[in-house]
């Protein structure tokens, strides 16, 4: 107790610093995976991709990140176990942040496959199991999270497969693909608008302090109706943008004009991708920060109920934006150059499948990896025979990243945890 009263401000400052560092790392590196598909398929220029990423990562983290943050903050560890020793919670979360950020840095520099989500979860489980007690962990919750890491890429793959098959039958394999595309693509745009609006209305508005009531009885019905209307607005806007695209004859590729229509759709799915990434990956970077802040602000009482302050998500969102501006744009350009084989009609299916899966995971508070989900989605399009060549070895490197990242994050967190304990014991 005294430790917290004495060093409270220092702890909070450290947590902000580490949390910001973590978010910076995500902005510098991880965002590239979310945005690279759009740049690679030439639906967006790098500048456009960065502008979209900045706005929608921020919105995603701020409006839909709350559930994942609270899982990291109080879902994995049982706060009751540490009721008498709030400083342990503070040390633990600080070391989890530092461990994850350090590990991400090392692995990225070495070119090893890593995932922010996995390092954070590994670090938290590590410090709690070794530093406190094995019973301090909600193992059934951890099991659920681990299962979601396998399930999310598979679901994203199935969704993307279905999306691409629908595109194939409804648009590409018809007598007049160009005009079919213009008529059908607004439906996909509606889906993007509906999805983001739904998550925002159900999960995000309490952060902003707005309450929506259209007199339909039931929060869900209200949100569904409002989201459907917002979706219509989005689709209308998209249809307006598509009107500018005229059919041009191209001998080399008869689908040239069709792909240009899909490129408009991809602007929308890129927004949803950035939103999804913000709502999950950013949120789990600031989860430990939220835990530290709430422990210190309540004067050492570890409460599971306290509301999450909005400024914490702001720290994460800002970290991402700064990461993007300082380093991320370079990585986006590099990834984009490697993904040139992906045309907009496939890129959109992959992005929408991944974004939908991630957003639903965010709403249920499951911390998953956006990158792995997107890989699953791309493979789904590949199974629909949509992509010329995919490197199947990447699946192996995803498994490797699980095997390496979890113990590495855990080990580093344990080391930092005992270091903090020793330093502040005097």
């Amino acid at each position: 107790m005294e430790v917290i009263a004495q060093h409270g401000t220092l702890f909070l400052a450290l947590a902000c610093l580490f949390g910001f560092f973590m978010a910076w790392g995500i902005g510098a590196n991880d965002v590239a995976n979310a945005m690279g598909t759009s740049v690679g398929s030439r639906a967006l220029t790098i500048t456009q991709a960065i502008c979209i990423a900045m706005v929608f990562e921020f919105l995603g983290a701020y409006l839909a990140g709350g559930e994942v943050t609270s899982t990291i903050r109080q879902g994995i560890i049982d706060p009751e176990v540490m009721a008498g020793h709030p400083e342990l919670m503070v040390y633990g979360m600080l070391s989890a942040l530092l461990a994850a950020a350090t590990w991400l840095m090392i692995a990225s520099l070495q070119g090893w496959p890593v995932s922010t989500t996995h390092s954070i979860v590994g670090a938290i489980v590590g410090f709690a199991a070794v530093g406190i007690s094995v019973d301090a962990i909600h193992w059934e919750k951890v099991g659920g999270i681990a299962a979601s890491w396998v399930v999310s890429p598979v679901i994203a793959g199935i969704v993307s497969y279905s999306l691409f098959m629908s595109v194939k039958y409804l648009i590409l394999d018809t007598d007049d693909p160009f005009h079919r595309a213009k008529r059908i693509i607004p439906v996909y745009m509606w889906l993007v608008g509906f999805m983001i609006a739904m998550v925002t209305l159900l999960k995000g508005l309490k952060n902003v302090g707005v309450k929506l009531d259209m007199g339909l009885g039931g929060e869900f019905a209200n949100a569904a109706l409002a989201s459907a209307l917002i979706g219509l607005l989005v689709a209308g806007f998209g249809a307006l943008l598509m009107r500018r695209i005229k059919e041009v004859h191209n001998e080399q590729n008869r689908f040239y004009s069709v792909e240009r229509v899909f490129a408009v759709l991809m602007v929308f799915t890129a927004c949803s991708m950035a939103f999804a990434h913000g709502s999950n990956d950013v949120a789990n970077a600031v989860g430990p920060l939220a835990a530290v802040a709430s422990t210190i602000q309540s004067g050492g009482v570890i409460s599971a109920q306290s509301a999450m302050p909005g400024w914490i998500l702001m720290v994460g969102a800002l970290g991402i934006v700064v990461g993007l501006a300082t380093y991320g744009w370079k990585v986006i350009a590099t990834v984009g150059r490697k993904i040139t084989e992906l045309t907009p009609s496939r890129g959109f299916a992959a992005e929408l499948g991944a974004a939908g899966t991630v957003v639903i995971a965010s709403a249920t508070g499951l911390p998953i990896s956006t990158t792995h989900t997107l890989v699953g989605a791309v493979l789904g399009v590949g199974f629909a025979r949509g992509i010329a060549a995919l490197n199947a070895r990447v699946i192996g490197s995803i498994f490797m990243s699980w095997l390496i990242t979890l113990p590495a994050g855990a080990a580093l967190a344990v080391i930092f945890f005992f270091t903090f304990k020793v330093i502040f014991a005097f």
Partner: protein
Amino acid sequence: MTGSNILGKLFGRSPIGPIQEHMQIANQAVQLLPDLIRATTAGDWDTAGAVHKEIERTERDADKLKRSVRRHLPKSLFLPVPRSDLLSLVSMQDNVANTARDVAVIIMGRNMCFPESMQDSVLAFAEACAATAGQALLAIQELDELLEVGFSGREVKRVEAMLKELDKMERRTDKMAAGLRAQLFRIESELPPVDVIFYYQILSLLGNVADEAEAVGDRLQVLMAK
């Protein structure tokens, strides 16, 4: 920090573009054969030599591209069509270029010139064989459109129609070859025997060019059927 980007590593190099380019080069070699025969019948050996050089160069280019396609098709790639089908498609395309070169080598090596009574029909035959290779190229050039629609539906039907035309053209070259062999048989006793052997060989090699072009089409059909 870019090495860790899983997504960048996920996408392999598409074999479709290089395969199309390979067929284009193979076809180029075949399209030069009528020029070569025209030059030899005119007795213009300078031009014939230049054309022969050009055919040799094209065949080497095709070889280089073939090896590059194979190098970029490792077993770990996940492709929309079986890898073995793509590899044998490239081999068959390469055969077309190789046979074209064989024809040129024999004609130039022996300063060969067909008997005057046959010259027009031999040229027509060479042109028909070249047209067959051209039709195979047209079908191969649909590969990227096939990929766009995931190897299904209308695009497959479209390519199948092209392959039917290819079949027809190849049958025509068969008939022309039979006619030419009969013509040669009637006059062969008046000609130097060694020359006659090689006339027959050139006729059969030209026929092979058309056969191999058709084999490319057959392979394409197998590839689409899966």
